[in-house]
């Protein structure tokens, strides 16, 4: 009997240790990255000496500042367009049963599942061929395409949890379809829409592969700039800007998680 309890305790400990090790594995490199951005050594040598000079250097780095500005601008435009178009499509799927509905929903999977390398290079081919060309506008076209499936899925999930009752109640009380949409449906959908918008922002802000193939020389966004810095040789300045990126996207996604009630039952 005693031995059995001991075994249970052992396995209990082993399971927790395993989870802890997994978390350590996931977060250790990120922590190292952040710490080295505060270390006063160009060659990443220890012992650690605290400095904020890499962050101060960022303020004078025109290229990185411009790239950051471009990143945020593209991400905001992407959020606006993808959330609007995606919400419209999600409304149609929730409200109507029509021929081709399943087919349209299945079409959302290729953008998610085909490797970005193939999607990115295909966009390069088409945009070059048709004269759309490369640049921020091309990146925006691509980012919206990648965000749309997620927006439709997230808003759709919210709509599915609401069900058609509210809309029917509004109609039976004499609301016009437009009144019902603006005064009843949109307010209850709001958490889903905001969550989808946050997710769309993160998709674009973190997107590297598509932007990489669609960036002409001289125009870039943060991940593209970081990539070329890593390849050409880098200083802890890259750590500083990377840390900022990680903090921004993690904050956005934590907000998303709160709004969409993601993870675990409640």
């Amino acid at each position: 009997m005693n031995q059995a309890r001991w075994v249970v305790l052992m396995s209990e400990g082993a399971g927790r240790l395993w989870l802890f090790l997994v978390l350590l594995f996931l977060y250790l490199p990120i922590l190292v990255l952040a710490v080295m951005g505060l270390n006063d050594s160009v060659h990443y040598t220890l012992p650690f000496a605290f400095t904020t000079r890499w962050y101060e250097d960022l303020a004078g780095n025109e290229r990185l500042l411009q790239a950051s500005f471009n990143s945020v601008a593209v991400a905001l435009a992407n959020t606006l367009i993808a959330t609007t178009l995606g919400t419209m499509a999600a409304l149609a799927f929730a409200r109507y049963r029509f021929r081709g509905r399943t087919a349209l929903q299945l079409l959302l999977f290729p953008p998610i599942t085909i490797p970005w390398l193939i999607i990115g290079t295909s966009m390069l081919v088409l945009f070059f061929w048709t004269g759309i060309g490369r640049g921020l506008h091309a990146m925006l076209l691509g980012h919206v395409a990648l965000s749309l499936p997620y927006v439709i899925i997230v808003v759709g999930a919210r709509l599915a949890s609401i069900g058609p009752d509210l809309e029917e109640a509004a109609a039976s009380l004499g609301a016009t379809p437009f009144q019902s949409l603006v005064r009843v449906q949109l307010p209850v959908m709001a958490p889903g829409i905001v969550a989808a918008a946050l997710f769309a922002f993160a998709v674009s802000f973190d997107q590297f592969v598509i932007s990489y193939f669609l960036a002409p020389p001289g125009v870039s966004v943060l991940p593209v700039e970081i990539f070329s810095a890593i390849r050409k040789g880098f200083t802890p300045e890259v750590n500083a800007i990377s840390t900022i990126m990680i903090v921004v996207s993690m904050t956005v996604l934590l907000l998303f998680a709160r709004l969409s009630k993601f993870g675990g039952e409640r």
Partner: protein
Amino acid sequence: MRIETRRRWAIAWLTGPAYLWLAVTIFLPLSAMLYFSFQKKGPFGRHASEFSLKHYEAFFTKGYLQDLMWRSLEMGFHVTGLCILIGFPAAYWLARRIHGRWREALFLLIVLPFWSNALVRVFSWTIVLRPDGVLDRAVHLVIPGLPTIDLTDSYAAIIIGLVHSYLPYMILTCFLSLQAIDESLLEAARSLGARSWTILGRIILPLAVPGLAAGSILIFVPVIGSFFEPRLLGGPKGTVIGTVIEEQFTVVSNWPLGGALSFILLAIVLLILAVSAPVLKNHMRTT
């Protein structure tokens, strides 16, 4: 009849813009690439279009391209396998043994890095794995006198970076299927005298197959199409089919060959999905 017309217009107006966008930015580009993969030359300069199979032939006649494709597939198997070995026990513990707010918080902690920039996380590994880096120092702290550990530009570094990138996928999908297992099923087994190993092997694992399969597909497909992870972590040893495809577009401008290799890669992905689909379907029916 008028209601039916209005209904149709509403559907068209609501879905039209999103799907028009997807058509122009996903499906048209893929078609254009398919078209050029069967052309002799890419869309540069003035020349008549000329049908050609030579880029597909190149793959079947040039041994090194097949070797690289094989290397990518091998990389996919290694990464997926490691993700199962590391991720499944973690998902199991999280789903079955930890409850309440703790579970929610841990779950969020596991999926959170997954959504942060993949490139930045690969970059962080280059700093951890370099000679005199964090790993090197930590190992020497425990066992002094070992030779320097330098994983820069190695296959191991690529695998570590990719497992780090995709592990949360496996934990997520396994967690969802493990969480759905009815506790009374396990209690019944226990009360009938089944040992823990029997329960794990005959009940839990079979019920977790959909999660394992979904996670494997979600990891395998992007890994065999990866290019910047092998490039940054593997250096000269990091040449895989993904980096070759990338080079056709960024360095040597042989777009038709890049297109042909992309579609061969896609065909292999579809083949693997087609082979695994019946297994998956069967399984879901019987369980």
